């Protein structure tokens, strides 16, 4: 391929890198505040915390996942298209169209940054509208923990399958890549031929038809909000978070070529594989499966898994009156392992104290118990008699924080 002649730095690039810098600084500040003060980000409200988490998810993993799992790599396609247009329009390399070439000298394309920027802006608007729609739909239905678990497991399998596809492990994994219907690809292709500003805008809007795994998970969360404004804000924050990574990769793919894109794809495949397993594991937790990573390891190493607890004892036994106490904190459940007498009714006291993470969404899958706990307060759960040796797993609704009650 011919070498491109770089003239000046595109102002859009400077603006975008500014946005990237600000976004990363914002994310780092958030992480720091979490470390220093516990989870203070959500101190004003749980909804705001969810939005911040969506943004951080977007900036850390969503952008890469979007690029990977969309399969079609629409942004990259756009970038290639721009590159081709750029090369075709360069009068030095293609002298065939004399009249047209002369015209191009007067108005040369300066960079691929502006179309990618427009593409991302359109994507942001479209997904925000989608978030509003999902939130509105969510107000008419509620996702039970089991449905959510099945959704997470399906998304996890989808992501792992896609990562294996990217590693070219076996031809069967190609079927994890969703091929959009021909009429859509044909329409996108015809649209991509345009060089006006409407083209990237339309292409950005069309990405709504090929969401990636993390985006799909976020869409499920937006559905779970049951509120149009909150759903829109959630998707806005998430897509805003994905934009810097999306922009950088798409821009570099245009500017530095396919070799770098391949390198990025390897990296993306690794990230998606890890994310896929994390999602799958979360789904298994919400389902109360003993085969999730957390539950398997807590069974093997009961004491070490609870060392992070601030309690004096990592394993707590039930009081003589059958009362169990579980402290629900923003960083998880303490103690993680409770011991209880078998064949006896028990009362589990869930104590929250300025708890704002998803630990508040408390689930006991085996009892089909689900409760959104108050940020500060005590909730009681009656546990029916269980046979000796039974392990009752509990988790947050995202499958992130887990624990168990062992009956003996």
């Amino acid at each position, binding site marked *: 391929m011919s070498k491109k002649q770089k003239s000046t730095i595109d102002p859009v690039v400077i603006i975008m890198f500014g946005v990237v810098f600000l976004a990363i600084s914002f994310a780092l500040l958030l992480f720091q505040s979490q470390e220093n003060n516990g989870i203070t980000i959500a101190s004003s409200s749980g909804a705001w915390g969810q939005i911040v988490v969506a943004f951080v998810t977007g900036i850390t993993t969503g952008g890469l996942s979007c690029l990977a799992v969309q399969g079609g790599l629409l942004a990259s*396609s756009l970038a290639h298209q721009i590159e081709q247009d750029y090369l075709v329009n360069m009068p030095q390399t293609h002298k065939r169209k004399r009249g047209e070439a002369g015209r191009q000298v007067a108005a040369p394309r300066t960079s691929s940054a502006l179309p990618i920027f427009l593409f991302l802006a359109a994507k942001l608007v479209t997904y925000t509208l989608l978030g509003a729609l999902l939130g509105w739909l969510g107000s008419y239905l509620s996702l039970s923990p089991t449905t959510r678990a099945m959704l997470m497991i399906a998304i996890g399998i989808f992501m792992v399958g896609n990562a294996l596809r990217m590693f070219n492990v076996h031809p069967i994994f190609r079927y994890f890549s969703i091929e959009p219907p021909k009429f859509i690809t044909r329409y996108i292709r015809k649209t991509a031929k345009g060089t006006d500003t409407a083209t990237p805008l339309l292409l950005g809007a069309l990405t709504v038809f090929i969401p990636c795994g993390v985006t799909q998970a976020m869409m499920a969360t937006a559905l779970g909000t049951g509120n149009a404004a909150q759903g829109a804000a959630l998707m806005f924050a998430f897509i805003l978070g994905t934009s810097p990574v999306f922009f950088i990769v798409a821009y570099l793919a245009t500017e530095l070529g396919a070799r770098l894109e391949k390198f990025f794809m390897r990296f993306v495949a690794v990230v998606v594989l890890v994310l896929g397993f994390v999602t799958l594991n979360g789904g298994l937790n919400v389902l109360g499966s003993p085969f999730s990573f957390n539950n398997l390891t807590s069974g093997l190493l009961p004491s070490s898994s609870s060392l992070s607890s601030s309690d004096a004892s990592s394993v707590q036994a039930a009081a003589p009156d059958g009362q169990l106490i579980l402290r629900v904190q923003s960083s998880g459940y303490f103690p993680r392992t409770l011991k209880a007498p078998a064949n006896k009714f028990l009362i589990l006291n869930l104590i929250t104290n300025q708890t704002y993470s998803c630990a508040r969404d408390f689930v006991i899958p085996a009892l089909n118990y689900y409760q959104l706990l108050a940020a500060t307060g005590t909730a009681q759960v009656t546990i029916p008699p269980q046979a000796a040796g039974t392990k009752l797993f509990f988790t947050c609704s995202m499958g992130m924080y887990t624990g168990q009650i062992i009956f003996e």
Partner: protein
Amino acid sequence: MIKKTFSVPDMHCSNCSMKLESIEDDLPGVKGINASYHKQQMVVEFDEKQVSDEQIIAAAKKKGYQAVLA
């Protein structure tokens, strides 16, 4: 008009099929292309008086793919 199937083993995503299908806009005589990432192939409908297999293979190569007549 005839239809021929070309194997394209180096397609690595669904976007590749979109790129290969764009050959129909570039090569006069090609009526339509149906490329599939899943099957790693493209079915080309073309007028053999206007365009040859070699030209189609060359057009695919220009897009970055090694097409072989199946």
